């Protein structure tokens, strides 16, 4: 009896500081959740409020005076927002498909094939990552528009992005991790050609990696801003983010805040759904540590 009591007393010495530590930890973690989530809440409720309620001296943290859909109605009916929203998707989809395809091919070649100059070429590719492509953004824009005559098309957002060093390195890492060399030898003995080996053996095994790359690039492509700002100007083909800054910048229309928030909500919501659907693949892939490169 006495022995158990001493043991228990000793445990309390550990448990109480531990519990306090945990409590403190959870308070910090929940505070961070609040910081990360609150702007989403602000975005959605603001899109449902009249401008007067939004800019009242006492903030309305929820649509206290009834839900008001005017922002959405004006946005969708008068400004046809679905069009730029679809454009954002379209840009992201084609961009992502190209990136995944070319990155997987090159990643496979760098990981599993032995050809003269491979390591030097790989080294060179890594070196180019250190150069900020954006620093030459004005020459880039001029070349796109004046040399290639690609103004108001999606080509400048697609073709230059299709074979990124980042994606190729990531796919190379995944291929190295997922596929043992013996499997390559076996495929070669079976008379499987290089491309067939890639399609039949490599692609099925690196699907988790392809998913991560695709998800990350889809997010990036959907949210592109600087490049579209430079090369897109026709109202028919601009993307969602660009349309919003037009509203803000030109002041042609009175800046109707509920409409801006409705646009923000309509752009953010599909991406949130996309994220929650593919969350498992994304987190799983990133956690496998393939980004180390």
């Amino acid at each position: 009896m006495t022995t158990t009591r001493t043991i228990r007393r000793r445990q309390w010495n550990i448990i109480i500081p531990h519990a306090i530590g945990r409590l403190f930890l959870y308070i910090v973690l929940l505070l961070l959740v609040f910081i990360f989530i609150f702007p989403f809440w602000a975005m959605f409720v603001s899109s449902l409020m009249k401008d007067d309620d939004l800019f009242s001296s006492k903030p309305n943290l929820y649509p206290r005076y009834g839900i008001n859909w005017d922002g959405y109605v004006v946005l969708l009916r008068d400004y046809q927002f679905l069009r730029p929203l679809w454009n954002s998707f379209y840009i992201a989809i084609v961009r992502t498909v190209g990136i995944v395809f070319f990155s997987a091919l090159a990643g496979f070649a760098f990981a599993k094939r032995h050809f003269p100059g491979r390591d030097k070429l790989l080294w060179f590719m890594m070196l180019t990552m250190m150069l900020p492509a954006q620093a030459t953004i004005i020459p880039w824009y001029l070349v796109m528009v004046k040399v290639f005559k690609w103004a108001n098309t999606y080509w400048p957002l697609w073709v230059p992005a299709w074979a990124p060093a980042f994606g190729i390195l990531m796919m190379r890492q995944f291929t190295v991790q997922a596929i043992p060399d013996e499997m390559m030898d076996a495929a070669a003995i079976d008379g499987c050609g290089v491309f067939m080996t890639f399609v039949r053996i490599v692609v099925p095994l690196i699907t988790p990696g392809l998913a991560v790359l695709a998800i990350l690039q889809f997010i990036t492509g959907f949210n592109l801003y600087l490049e579209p700002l430079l090369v897109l100007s026709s109202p028919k083909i601009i993307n969602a983010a660009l349309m919003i800054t037009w509203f803000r910048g030109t002041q042609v229309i009175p800046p109707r805040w509920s409409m801006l928030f409705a646009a923000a909500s309509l752009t953010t919501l599909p991406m949130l759904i996309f994220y929650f659907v593919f969350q498992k693949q994304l987190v799983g892939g990133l956690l496998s540590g393939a980004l180390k490169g």
Partner: protein
Amino acid sequence: MTQSLVGFRTFARPVKPLWRQVWEHRLDYLFISPFYITWILFAAYPFIWGLRLSFGYWKGFGPIEWVGLENYAIMLKDPWLVKCLVNTFEFFIVMVPISLFVALLLAVVLNIKNLAGKGTFRTLYFMPYVTNTIMVGIVFLQLFDDGYGWVNAGLKAIGLQPVGWLRNNIWAAKFVVVFLGLWQNMGYYVLMFLGGLQGIEPELYEQARIDGANSWHQFWGLTLPLLKPIIFFFSVMATISLVGAGAFAAPYILTQGGPEGETTTLMLRIYQLGIQGLRYGDSAAFGFMISLLVVGIGAAQVRLQRAWMD
């Protein structure tokens, strides 16, 4: 030469000529070619083109007029150059260490084995990463509004002075721009570090515990050294994105570079010069300054990493 007695050659097979090897691997070269082709067409070519442009004056059509070093001279005399450099450097020096430190800390916390709900925290922290900077910028404009913003209302509610966030106070404006960047990217950085942490064998910690190392020692002696490659990769990537496009959208939507130009980053200035001002030559010269800067920082980081790894 040395033919062995039994009759087969002991020396190595004659090496095939290089062109032959290259030809046999033509498919491999085809596979990796998209990167090199796009790099030459869309990175190297604009780079060279821009270099020529930076020594010239161009109206946007016709031939480029050669003006020598004039653009560079104008740029060096321009008070904006120093201002933008300082602003970008401030963002850099604040954001990279903070995001590194906080992300690492959060990753270590979310890696605690018996912490309930850590998956949920991870998921929620990543949410801002999927948002569009412009769209979040709209929300931040309202949250940090001087008169009606919710943040100021919150400050008043707990008895503090409201702050003129975006228009009047330069440090507050800088803070909001930095905060937007941290808010958006923190979850991604946390996941990156978590990936690294989960790659560490649990047995190593077991061993350290047996050797009497407390969790603080374990972190400094075990976790941190093993994470070095990721920390390095992360800091290089963060630098590139910060000095480059990462430092464009946030100030562009939030402050348009104000107040008093104190949130104008190098990228924003390039845009203002080149697109809004149609000063192509100047902006190209400006771009090359950034390139030099980033390459310099990158080289310094590589050197630092070498010193640190040993």
